Each structure stands twice: as C-alpha cells, then as structure tokens.
C-alpha cells in the first residue's frame, strides 16, 4: 500500500485518501504554441521504470495538491514536496542519487 506524507498538513496518508494527478512538472503550452509542443504537453508522458515525479492531491484530507518522488519499480517513496515549484527539493534529489545512482528523468521544465 502506497503511503505519502502530505507536505501541507503532515498527515501520512494512504492511497484511498489520495488522488493521483499524473506526471509532475509539465510545462504548459497554450494558444500560439506549435503543434509539436501542444502534442507533447497533452499526450507525451514520462513512463519510467524507476524514479518518477508525480502530482498528487490529498483529496480526502486537506484537499491540497502536492508533488511526490517515487520509484515505479518498488513503490519506494523518496519524498513529497510542495506544489509551488518546478523542481524537486535538493534533499530529495540527493536522496534519490544515493539510492538510485545513475538515475535519469527528463529535464525539469522551467515553469514561467
């Protein structure tokens, strides 16, 4: 069973309390962007076997959105962090680097 700690209210919530929100740190594209950019934003998804970053919502709790770093192979959780960022915290990145040497993910988008 997947348990994530909500970074806002501090509750260690198990899955039924949470709603999965898909890939984290997507750079949004709207009117005026190219077909490729729009396509990638809407449909292309990171689908790694290993380290992954996701959006979650503490739906049956405080109701807030947050981010989680997780391993899709083992369901190990590396940490959760605020929704108001486009990159994970250094602490989480260090933790992942220690546990999964050589890990990769796509470039973190610069959300502006």
């Amino acid at each position, binding site marked *: 069973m997947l348990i994530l700690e909500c970074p806002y209210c501090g509750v260690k919530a198990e*899955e039924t309390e949470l709603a999965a929100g898909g890939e984290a740190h997507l750079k949004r594209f709207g009117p005026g962007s190219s077909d490729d950019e729009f396509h990638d934003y809407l449909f*292309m998804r990171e689908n790694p076997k290993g380290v992954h970053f996701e959006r979650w919502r503490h739906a049956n709790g405080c109701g807030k959105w947050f981010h989680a770093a997780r391993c899709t192979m*083992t*369901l190990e959780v590396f940490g959760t962090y605020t929704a108001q960022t486009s990159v994970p915290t250094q602490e989480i990145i260090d933790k992942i680097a220690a546990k999964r040497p050589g890990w990769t993910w796509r470039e973190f988008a610069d959300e502006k």
Partner: protein
Amino acid sequence: MKRYSVFAVAREALRYHTGWERAWRSPEPKRHYDVVIVGAGGHGLATAYYLGKNFGITNVAIIEKGWLGGGNTGRNTTIIRSNYLQDPSAAIYEKARSLYETMSQDLNYNVMFSPRGVIMLAQTEHEIRGYKRTAHANQQQGVQTEWISPERVKEIVPIINLDGPRYPVLGGLYQERGGTARHDAVAWGYARACSDMGMDIIQKCEVTGVRTENGRTVGVDTTKGPIDCDKIGMIVAGNASVLSEMAGFRLPMESVALQAMVSEPIKPCMDVVVMANTVHGYMSQSDKGEMVIGGGTDGFNNYTQRGSFHHIEETVRALVETFPMVSRLKMLRQWGGIVDVTGDRSPIISKTPVQNCFINCGWGTGGFKSIPGSGWAMAELMATGHSPLTEEFTINRFKEGKFIDESVAAGVAH
C-alpha cells in the same frame, strides 16, 4: 511437429505417454534474423505466426525476457468481445473475434474458445443511451450485438439481482458470439505453430538496447548477446515505453497496474460473461468453476505487477450488489499485470520514427481479446508496410487529433 488428435491421445495412452514431444524448441539465438519480435506474449507470438503463415517470413526470432505468455497474456480475465463503438476498433476486434472461432483448428491446439456470450450491463441512464448507440454502430459495422431488456438479462443470468438500491440493471448490450478462451493455450498454440515453422522462441533473454544506424534499426542487444535483424517488432505491453526509449523515441503512454482475482471453485451458475462498467467489475465462470473477476486500474504509474489492495475491495463490493451470492465466496487468488494506457484508450499499431522498427502497444486493459487480430494486422504492417486494419492506429494520431476515443465509449472496463 506431430499433430494432436484423438488418435494421438489413443496412441500415447497405449505407450504410457512416452511419445509426446516438446511443444516448441528452446534454441540459442542465431546472429541474424530477418525479423526480431520483442515480447513472446500473445500479441508477439500471433504477429510471428501470421508473418510466417500469411507472408512466408519464417527467419524470425521472438525474444522474451521472462517466460512465454507470462505477462499480461497469463494475467487477464480471458474475455473476448468486439462490441466497440468506433469503426477502427470494431474492425480489428471483430477480426480478432472471428479468428478466435477457428483458432483451435488453425493451430491444431485446443484454445477452449467458448462463445458463451458477453453482456455489458447498463446501470445508469447514460449507459442505456451509450449502449444503444453502440448497438446501432455495431449494426453498421457488421458486428452482431443487440440491446436487451432487464427481463432478458435475468433470463440469461439467473443469479443477477436486477433492482439493486444504487445501481439497478436497466438493460444490457449483448454480444452472443463473444465469450472466453484459455489464455495460456492461445500463447502456447501460437508458440508451437511458430516453432514448427522454424522460428526461434528465445526465453529468459532481455533486450538491453536497440541498435540503430542512420535512423534505421539494425539489431538489438540482449542478455544473450547482440542479434542483428532487418526489422524489429516491439510488442511488450507495459514495458513499451522502456523499449521505445532504447530506440530513441517517446510514446504517449503510461503504465498502470490492473488486477484480477478468482474465487474458490463452485458449481456452474453463470454461463455468460457479465461486465458492469459503472461499478468497475466484470465476472465470468471458468471451466474449473472459479468465478473470474476483474476490476479497475490503479491511478498511478506502476511496474510492480501487483495492484492496490483497496481495488480488490472496491471490485468485490461493486459485484455484491448485482450478484448477492458473491458475498459468500472466498477469493482464492489475486494478481496484477502492467497495462499500457494511451490518451484515447486505444492501441498504437504503427511505424515509428525509427525506420524498420514497428510498435504494437497501448492495448491497455483490453489486450487478450484482440490477440489474433492484432497479430494479423501487425504482421501485414511489418511485411508490406501497410495494413488497412492499422491505418487509424498510428502513433501520430494524437498530433492530428484523430483519436479513436474508446474511453468514452467503453467506460472503464475495456
């Protein structure tokens, strides 16, 4: 290959069953093949089979990292139907269903195809409208389905409770020629036929890299060494994104866990497949007497081949209202598989940005029923570069906005 027949059984009975051969060879890989199929599940083996049977291409290797048919082919709920709303889906699933009808004879292998009928229950007003629409569409597509009344549902499925407090049964979409088949036997039958045509099925051999030169594929690296090939077919379901990344392109896809379970065996009580999409549950009874129950997918990316516990409860809870007798059943086994889900819940059977590299994935939660049709179409695509069945299922359809939107049409259990 010695053919299986009643005479073979009698002959072997007289000599203590010492004369049976292995159903397929397990050779070491050669250095070069015309075609390498990655993934020896149903879809991969079917593709190889039709490459040989329809196009005479037999210098083929089928590479499998685990064991043959050990992925989603051995983890599904074995339902076969073709009552899809969209034309391209109906075409390929109906092709598959029709191939299932003669598969045992074609392969000389009993796949236990049982056209026992499939009912999809309508339990909300929206579903009534949706299924009536599907029934009309199916009529145009030449797929034999009909809308049936609650009374008729009760006639076909006596154990059903029509007037549940939350989700009464308001009717159903009935496909009389749908049904089930033995999932392992489908993989084994294709494997035996492929091996007989001289193809090499190489198990416990993981692909670690896809080699390309000037934008075209030249071979794969595996745990049993490099293998050169002219064409690659990637048919690996949940691991499609991992493999495509090796080849250098991305897929509009996410891998999630889907679960199923079986109950203890009981006396025959339901000779039809019933799907209840509103409440996320579907059920049939196996020949052994177990109730085979499938549920919904988890909401998050997962490669662990096991699903979340709460989905088991949700699934069974949903069924208890419609089938009160289920509440007395003990569940024997539960398992999960990793399904590859695209944005429009339809598969991708397509050429890729890498030349001579073909991909067949995205079957999501509905792969088993399509195995022969998918193999048929994929073989045609790989051999000739074009197949009428796959035209709409390209990798580029998302960019063009040409979705084959079955997520709306089929609900969840798909």
